[in-house]
C-alpha cells in the first residue's frame, strides 16, 4: 500500500503545463514584436545616424550601425551648429527653454491648484459660471489669440522677453490644469474639509495641511503635462520671443531646416534627440505616478 501511494506521489504534479507555442501566443507576441519594431526603428535610425560621420551617412544604409563611432555630431549640435548669426549650437536654446519652462510650470501649477481647490471647496456666487468660462477657454484655437496677445504683451512692455512667454504659457495652461485639480479635489471626501474647518483651519491651512499632502499624484501629472507641453511648444516660442531668446524647439527647427550649405543629417539627428531628451527623462522618472494620477483625476467630473 505504502509503495503504491509513494509511486503516485512521485509522479508529475501541478496544473497541466500550457504550450508555449500556442496559436494565441504566436499572435499575441507576434503583434507585440511588430509594434515594437515599428516604434523603435525610427529611434534606431536616429541614434545610428547621429553616431556616423558625414561620409558614412552619404553611403546610404540608414539601418546599418556605424563603422566608426564618432560623437562629433552631438558636440556640434550642442555647441557649434549655427542658426542665423549665433554659432553656439542648441545650448543657448536649451537654457532659454529651461528659463521659460521652470517658472511657467511652477506658477501655473500653483495658481491652478488653488483655483481647483477654491472652486470645489469654497464655492462662491457664480463659481460654476466662472468654471464654465474657464473650461470654454480651452476650446478656443490658439491661432485666434496670437495677435491679440502680441498687442497685450506690447502694451505691458514685455513683448519679446522671456517673461512675456512665461506669462502666456501660464495663462494657456490654466483651463486644463484647473479642471484637473478641481476633479481631483472633488474626489477627496467633503467631510475631511468640514472636519478641518471645525478644527479651525482656514483657507490656506486646509490647502497646505490637508489637501496638498493628499494630492501628490495629481501634482506629478500636472508637472508632466506642463513640462512636456511647454518644452515642446513651438508656436508661442517663435511668435513671442526674438532670435537670441528662442526656445530649444525653435532653434532645432532653424538648424534642421537651414537651407544653406550641406544637410548634416547626423547633426540634425543628434540635435533632435537632445531636444527630446527632457520630456523623455520626465516620463521615465515619473511614469508610474503619471498613470496613477491620471486615473485618480478621472474618477469624478
Amino acid at each position, binding site marked *: 500500500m505504502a509503495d503504491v501511494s509513494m509511486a503516485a506521489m512521485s509522479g508529475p504534479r501541478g496544473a497541466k503545463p500550457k504550450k508555449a507555442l500556442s496559436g494565441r501566443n504566436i499572435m499575441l507576441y507576434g503583434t507585440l514584436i511588430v509594434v515594437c519594431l515599428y516604434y523603435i526603428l525610427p529611434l534606431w535610425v536616429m541614434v545610428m545616424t547621429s553616431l556616423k560621420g558625414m561620409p558614412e551617412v552619404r553611403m546610404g544604409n540608414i539601418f546599418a550601425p556605424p563603422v566608426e563611432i564618432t560623437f562629433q555630431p552631438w558636440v556640434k549640435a550642442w555647441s557649434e551648429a549655427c542658426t542665423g548669426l549665433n554659432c553656439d549650437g542648441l545650448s543657448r536654446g536649451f537654457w532659454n527653454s529651461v528659463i521659460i519652462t521652470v517658472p511657467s510650470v511652477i506658477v501655473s501649477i500653483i495658481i491652478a491648484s488653488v483655483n481647483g481647490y477654491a472652486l470645489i471647496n469654497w464655492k462662491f456666487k457664480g463659481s460654476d459660471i466662472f468654471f464654465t468660462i474657464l473650461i470654454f477657454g480651452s476650446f478656443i484655437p490658439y491661432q485666434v489669440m496670437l495677435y491679440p496677445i502680441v498687442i497685450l504683451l506690447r502694451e505691458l512692455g514685455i513683448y519679446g522677453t522671456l517673461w512675456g512667454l512665461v506669462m502666456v504659457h501660464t495663462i494657456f495652461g490654466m483651463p486644463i490644469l484647473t479642471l484637473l485639480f478641481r476633479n481631483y479635489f472633488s474626489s477627496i471626501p467633503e467631510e475631511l474639509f*468640514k*472636519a*478641518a*474647518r*471645525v*478644527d479651525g*483651519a482656514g483657507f490656506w491651512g486646509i490647502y497646505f495641511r*490637508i489637501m496638498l499632502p*493628499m494630492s501628490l499624484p495629481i501634482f506629478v501629472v500636472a508637472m508632466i503635462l506642463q513640462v512636456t507641453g511647454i518644452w515642446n511648444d513651438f508656436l508661442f516660442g517663435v511668435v513671442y520671443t526674438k532670435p537670441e531668446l528662442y526656445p530649444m524647439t525653435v532653434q532645432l527647427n532653424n538648424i534642421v531646416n537651414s537651407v544653406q550649405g550641406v544637410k548634416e543629417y547626423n547633426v540634425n539627428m543628434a540635435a533632435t534627440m537632445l531636444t527630446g531628451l527632457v520630456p523623455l527623462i520626465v516620463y521615465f522618472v515619473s511614469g508610474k505616478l503619471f498613470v496613477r494620477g491620471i486615473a485618480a483625476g478621472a474618477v469624478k467630473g
Partner: protein
Amino acid sequence: MGNSIEVKDLTLNFGSVSVLKNMNLDVAEGEFVVLLGPSGCGKSTLLNCLAGLLDITDGQIWIKGKNVTWSEPSERGIGMVFQSYALYPQMTVRGNLSFGLKNAKVPQAEIDKRIARAAEILQIQPLLDRKPAALSGGQRQRVAIGRALVRDVDVFLFDEPLSNLDAKLRSELRVEIKRLHNQLGNTMVYVTHDQIEALTLADRIAVMKGGVIQQLAAPLEIYNRPANLFVAGFLGSPSMNFLKGKTVDGGRAFQFGSTRIDLAGYEGGAVLVRDNAILGVRPEHITVSTTPIAGPSMPAEVEIDEHLGADSLLWLKAEGTNMSVRVPVEGRLPAGTKVHLGLDIPKASLFDSKTEQRI
C-alpha cells in the same frame, strides 16, 4: 440650567428649494437630543447649520448664550463627528487629535495633557502613533470622537456616526457614546435614521420630515403618543397598524368597516364625532385569541405567521386592511385561521385623517 443651543426661526433655502422651514429648537445644557428622520428630511443639514458649515438664509443660532449665527465653525465651541470618520489620512492619530488644538495655538503641554485624557477615556492609547489606514472602523470612529473630545467643547455634534459600522460594533459604540455622555455631561446633538439609536440614546427626540420638526419629545412619549401619522408610522418595527374609519356614538366608539370598537379608556377622553379618523394600534398592543374576547375587539384572518425567536409576528387581514401583531410564541396559527383581535385602547392613538394630527 440654561439652554445650550437655541435655534430661532431658522430657514435655509438652496436656490428656490426650501430645506429648513422656520425651525425652532432649544436644547438644554447637558441634554442628548437626537434628530431622527428619513433621508432628505434635513436633519444633517440642520446639524451642518449648527456647526457653521452651511450659511443659513434666515434666523439665528445661539450656543451657550452667544449669537453664533455668523461665526466660524471653530469659534462656536462645538466638536463634530462625521459618518465617514473624516480622519486626516496623512497624520497619525496623535496628529489628528492635535490638529485643531495647534490651529487654536494651545500650548504643547496642554495638548499632550488633553490627548492623554481623551486617549484614556476612549481607550486608544496604543493607537496614538498609527495612521488611520492601520485602524479598524470602530477604532477610527473612536479617534473621530476623540478629536471632538480634545477640543474641550460644550456641544458635541454627531452626524450618523455609526452608520458605517457593522451591527455588532454599532451596538457596542452606541453604548459607549451613552456612557461618554453620562461621564462628560456635554450637550449632544445626534443625527441618525436608525430608530433604535434614537430611542436608546436620546433624552429627547426630534422627528423631522420635509425640513420641519414633526415632534420633539422624550423617546417614550414619541413612541406612545405620536403627534401625527408620520411620527406614528416612522417609529416602531413593524410599524403601527392604521385602521381607517370614523368616530361614532358621540365619539365614544370607532366604526371600522362593519366592526364597532368601543373607545372607552382612550387617553384623550371623549372624542368628537369625526367622519375621517384613523385608529393607530401598535403590533404589541393587540392580543390574539381564537375565541371571542370581551372588550374592544375585531375579527381577522391569519395570513402569515413569522417566528422571530423571542416572539412571533402575525400578519393578518381585518376588514380588508393588512395588520401585524406581535404575540408570544405559543404554537403556530396556520394561514386562514379565523381569530379575534383584542385592542388595548388606552395605548392606542387616534388621528384625524385629513390633518393627520393626533386627536
